């Protein structure tokens, strides 16, 4: 069973910049798939497209068997998303943010209240529930984002650099929640900068470079790409400045 099927996908921006070029990829249900790439590689654009926020220029994306162009609302009902940047409502407190997230999804009030309490407790956020979003640390905001993704009981979790800027304690909480989600049959699509995170969590890892899939690997294969190149070595070569050529 396929959770995400991407075929010959090209994504572009209104200014003409191409973010992702003819990318094809298939992710199975129950899999944790990691996407590694440098800044500007196209990871966030790909994540936005899978979350139905960006329309493909060419090609197609199927999420849980549905096309992102045709069935966006139905897809959104079954996914949980943690975007790269927090999108918390700064006019509401923590509890209200979580409750409204459930209400936007059409969840009945009582169920929403129960789920919010459960996740507040699970992520150890009970002490801050009426605090303004402005006063929270980056780690706490990220935990609320994670709680939001889980609240609607998704089948597929889409995480865009979820641990960026987190201290090791919060990162461990995040990893634990991801592992538990997978144990319950969930699928995870995760983009990250950190090799260690990909190696720790993922079943398969794709390397995205300049909008194209440069290779695939598994932690079990020692993070070696099909070309034989080590992932870390690949990134070292990618960021190395071009040699100077004398005139």
């Amino acid at each position: 069973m396929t959770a995400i099927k991407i075929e010959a996908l090209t994504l572009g921006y209104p200014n003409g910049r191409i973010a992702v070029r003819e990318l094809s990829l298939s992710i199975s249900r129950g899999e944790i798939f990691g996407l590694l790439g440098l800044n500007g590689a196209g990871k966030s654009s790909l994540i936005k497209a899978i979350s139905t926020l960006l329309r493909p220029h060419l090609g197609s994306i199927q999420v849980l068997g549905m096309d992102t162009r045709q069935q966006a609302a139905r897809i959104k009902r079954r996914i949980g998303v943690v975007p790269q940047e927090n999108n918390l409502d700064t006019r509401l407190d923590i509890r209200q943010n979580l409750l409204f997230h459930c209400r936007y999804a059409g969840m009945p009030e009582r169920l929403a209240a129960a789920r919010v309490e459960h996740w507040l407790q699970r992520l150890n956020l009970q002490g801050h529930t009426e605090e303004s979003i402005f006063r929270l640390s980056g780690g706490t905001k990220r935990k609320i984002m994670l709680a939001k993704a889980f609240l609607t009981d998704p089948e597929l979790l889409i995480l865009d650099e979820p641990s960026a800027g987190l201290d090791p304690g919060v990162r461990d909480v995040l990893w634990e929640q991801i592992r538990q989600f997978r144990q319950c049959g969930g699928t995870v699509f995760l983009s990250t900068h950190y090799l260690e995170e990909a190696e720790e969590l993922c079943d398969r890892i794709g390397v995205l470079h300049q909008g194209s899939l440069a290779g695939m690997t598994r932690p079990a294969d020692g993070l070696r790409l099909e070309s034989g190149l080590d992932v870390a070595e690949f990134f070292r070569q990618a960021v190395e400045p071009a040699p100077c050529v004398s005139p």
Partner: protein
Amino acid sequence: MRFALTLLYRNLIIARADARYTFIRTVLQPAIYLLVFGLVVGRLMPNGAGGYGAIVAPGIIAISVVSAPLIAISSYLLTGYYFRTMEEWLLAPVSLRTVFLSMVFAGLCSSLVNALLVGGLAWAILGLVPQSPGLLLAVVSGGGLLFSLLVMLVLLIPERPEKGQELFALLMMVMTFLGCTFYSLEMLDEPLRSLALLLPTTYVSEGLRAAYLPAGPHLAVRPLLLGLGLVTLALYPAAAWAFRRRLGHFTW
């Protein structure tokens, strides 16, 4: 509908949290306008005590009706842009059209609430009661809808919504002073009269005058309602297009 009501409830919670500011904006400000222009200036005018008051009060209600959608909708778009909350709304399991219509609905509701509050103030301060409540409801609904769509269009055409907000504030100033809010259309000579007929505030103000004082000077009701309806119909596809263009391919 559930999504629209939730979005509206969010605005209510924020208005309650900012109770002092909400009170100043929705009650104190129009009350001062009604006191100064309706009561004080009204008594100084040569056409008799309260005469000008009856002309200016519907105009003050109109200002409240047409400016309410700017507050409601720009709150969504500006918060949505600067704090990325728009992404939260776009990720809700509803269509893009539902998000658009929900925000327009919030703008319309804020117009209705403002009309009720300022109408109540006009009754309390000037003793004005609408003679035709049906027409009042039609004009407030039409005006609220028209301005909700206009706000959406103007705020979403520039890349950043705050640029649109500045543009809309400029438009509002022109529409307020030239759009028959502080005087009736009958008081104007050409070419100002023709210019006023191009501004939607004229139709809202004159419509409210027709609802409050059917015997007083105002535009004929049928062309007035037709004008409001036609402009609203023309604005709908334009505002929906601007929303789809800016947020259907979400690059904020």
